[in-house]
């Protein structure tokens, strides 16, 4: 981020050609393959002056194998030969994103706010519904409604794909120790690799814009969901599994009737984490031309416009708190909230009661 402040504003303008030659532009040179020569020459300059080989006294002076150029040629190979594959791969993301964006931006803001309030009421209670209305109206009042909805669509899309991929993967991990062992380092890498590292190859493979933004977000936000799904299933007490087996349950029945229902609170904690991480990626994703609240923050930083950055940041925080409260209350079951079934509370509960009293008379 320190380099971005040096330039005037590389992002708001649509990638001007003169930016490519600037050393501060971190990815302008990447596809051309000149990075070795220009971008990081200062790193290796001393080695180039006198060809040195490794000795016993200094065994790590020169790299033993050239990982850097291996990755570079690998990514280049992928870009040149599998462009079509990646174009197809991003299609479903594109469609989902279109659906969410259309749904959130094409209807009147008050309709969206009302729907949100109803969902909040259903999953939690009237307090959250009220909080939801206030915070969404506040977003609108700051005149960041459109940006908020775009960000929300982005986050919802990435969470949707995280659920689609993450939960089955977590289940698979819990069923096979081999899969778990193989996936764990990959998950570690997904969580700890700085987003900037895979931002470059993602842009090379998928281009820039909202879809690669969602893909980057998925990579970053999915691991907790996989881990917590795995953990939730593993945590189901062994005596319950044994009892299920004793009563003749098949593996499938154990999964669907015992393990998954009991893992729901843990899985919901994973969904909550995924949602929060998705939101936290919004600013980084805006670096690859993803619109929304993140872009406002980035622009604010770029122009030293603290106000603009604050407005964008506040929007993200408000969305984050609202979504966090909603998913957290999903993790609690209906009994903790005092009613026996989910359909006995909230707006659906109201309709249910109307229906019941009507059928009685």
């Amino acid at each position: 981020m320190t380099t971005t402040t040096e330039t005037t504003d590389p992002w708001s303008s649509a990638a001007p050609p003169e930016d490519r030659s600037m050393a501060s532009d971190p990815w302008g040179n990447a596809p051309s393959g000149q990075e070795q020569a220009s971008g990081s020459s200062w790193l290796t300059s001393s080695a180039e002056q006198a060809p040195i080989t490794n000795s016993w006294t200094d065994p790590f002076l020169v790299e033993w194998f050239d990982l850097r150029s291996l990755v570079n040629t690998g990514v280049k190979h992928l870009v040149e030969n599998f462009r079509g594959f990646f174009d197809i791969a991003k299609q479903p993301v594109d469609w989902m994103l279109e659906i969410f964006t259309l749904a959130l931006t094409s209807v009147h803001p008050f309709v969206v706010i009302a729907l949100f309030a109803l969902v909040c009421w259903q999953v939690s209670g009237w307090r959250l519904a009220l909080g939801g209305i206030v915070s969404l109206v506040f977003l609108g009042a700051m005149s960041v409604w459109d940006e908020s909805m775009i960000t929300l669509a982005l986050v919802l899309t990435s969470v949707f794909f995280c659920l689609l991929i993450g939960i089955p993967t977590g289940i698979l991990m819990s069923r096979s120790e081999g899969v778990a062992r193989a996936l764990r380092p990959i998950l570690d890498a997904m969580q700890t690799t700085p987003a900037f590292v895979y931002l470059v190859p993602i842009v090379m493979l998928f281009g820039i814009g909202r879809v690669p933004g969602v893909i980057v977000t998925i990579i970053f936000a999915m691991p907790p969901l996989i881990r917590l799904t795995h953990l939730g299933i593993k945590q189901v007490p062994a005596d319950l599994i044994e009892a299920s087996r004793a009563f003749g349950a098949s593996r499938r029945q154990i999964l669907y009737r015992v393990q998954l229902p009991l893992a729901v609170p843990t899985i919901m904690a994973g969904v909550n984490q995924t949602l929060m991480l998705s939101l936290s990626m919004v600013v980084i994703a805006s670096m690859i031309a993803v619109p929304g609240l993140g872009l406002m923050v980035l622009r604010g930083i770029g122009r030293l416009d603290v106000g603009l950055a604050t407005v964008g940041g506040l929007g993200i925080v408000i969305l984050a708190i609202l979504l966090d409260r909603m998913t957290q209350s999903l993790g609690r079951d209906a009994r903790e909230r005092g009613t026996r079934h989910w359909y006995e509370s909230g707006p659906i509960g109201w309709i249910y009661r109307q229906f019941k009293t009507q059928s009685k008379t």
Partner: protein
Amino acid sequence: MSTKLEVKNLYKVFGDEPKKAIEMAKQGIDKDQIFAETGMTLGVKDVSLQIHTGEIFVIMGLSGSGKSTLVRLLNRLIEPSAGQVLLDGENIAAMSDEALRQVRLKKISMVFQSFALMPHLSVLENTAFGLELAGVPVSERHEKAMQALQQVGLESHLHAYPDELSGGMQQRVGLARALAIDPEVLLMDEAFSALDPLIRTGMQDELVQLQAKYQRTIVFISHDLDEAMRIGDRIAIMQGGEVVQVGTPDDILHNPANDYVRSFFQGVNVSQVFTAKDICRRKQSTIIRKTLEGGVAAAIAQLQDADRDFGYVVDKEGRFEGVVSLASLWSAEKSGKSLMNACLLDLPIVKADSSLSEIISVIAQAPCAVPVVDDNQKYLGLITRAQLLQALDREEDTTP
């Protein structure tokens, strides 16, 4: 009595090369040495048992004796290493997975020490769990679950969740869940061990009552001799993975096979284990036949000869009729009454199967030795205060 469940030369080895460990065990190498040499644990060693239809068969042993492993081998929750488990002649140990599932769904069910109720299901749904797994339609399985809950007296808590129930109630649900599939064999793994003593005895009584009604084959695991004696028709005692003795409670009580079995009586509450029948003595001299030639006079003579103050009148089938004393006989003789009219009123008698703790006060307060009768009023013998004290003191005798 037909055999319901038969176990033949069953072995369970926890380890990589069960065959090797079994071979060593057959050569007479003991469990500890096998573990020291190969790192494998011999869980169950060459167990053969026959469990009859309709009996409560208790498998007893200290922890680590392999009893929980053995019961899990019966429904193959643990895979046997060698040997057979025959349910109605069908070998469970060699069944296909699907056949095994069918056996578990329909024939064998289990009650667990930890209850193992599904926390996300209501009492009714928990009870219907086995039926649900078998794909029984909702209305039918709820009806059957209701019947099972009625059997354990929980029909009023249908919609409660397990965490809202006390331990005793939870285990009733566990029992109802096992009963709901109407099993032929019920495995109970220390089912009552986690309950507090008062509730435990209550549950034991209920199990015995249920058993009297439905006659299921029950395999009950316990580490508690009191419990085993209370409910078991037969008891198998396990030590180090082997069955060291099988027999009725009386057999085991009176002829323990070794010191290990004897050690079970240490610390056991004798007054709970022994019944009136176990300690009563039959003294011929005090039995007065109702049909005695010579009536009252002969009875007086008999008691005086034996130097006794009381006599116990029985009829010719051996049924107890009443107690007479020398004093009552004399007054009967004076007024010319019959032997039966000389019987003293209001004297206590005790039932054969009442435990010693129940009869202590009766015997302490009775003016004479108390007669013991069985359910058919048949006279079994007498218990004197001295005998009772001696029996209660037995705990000391059994200390090795």
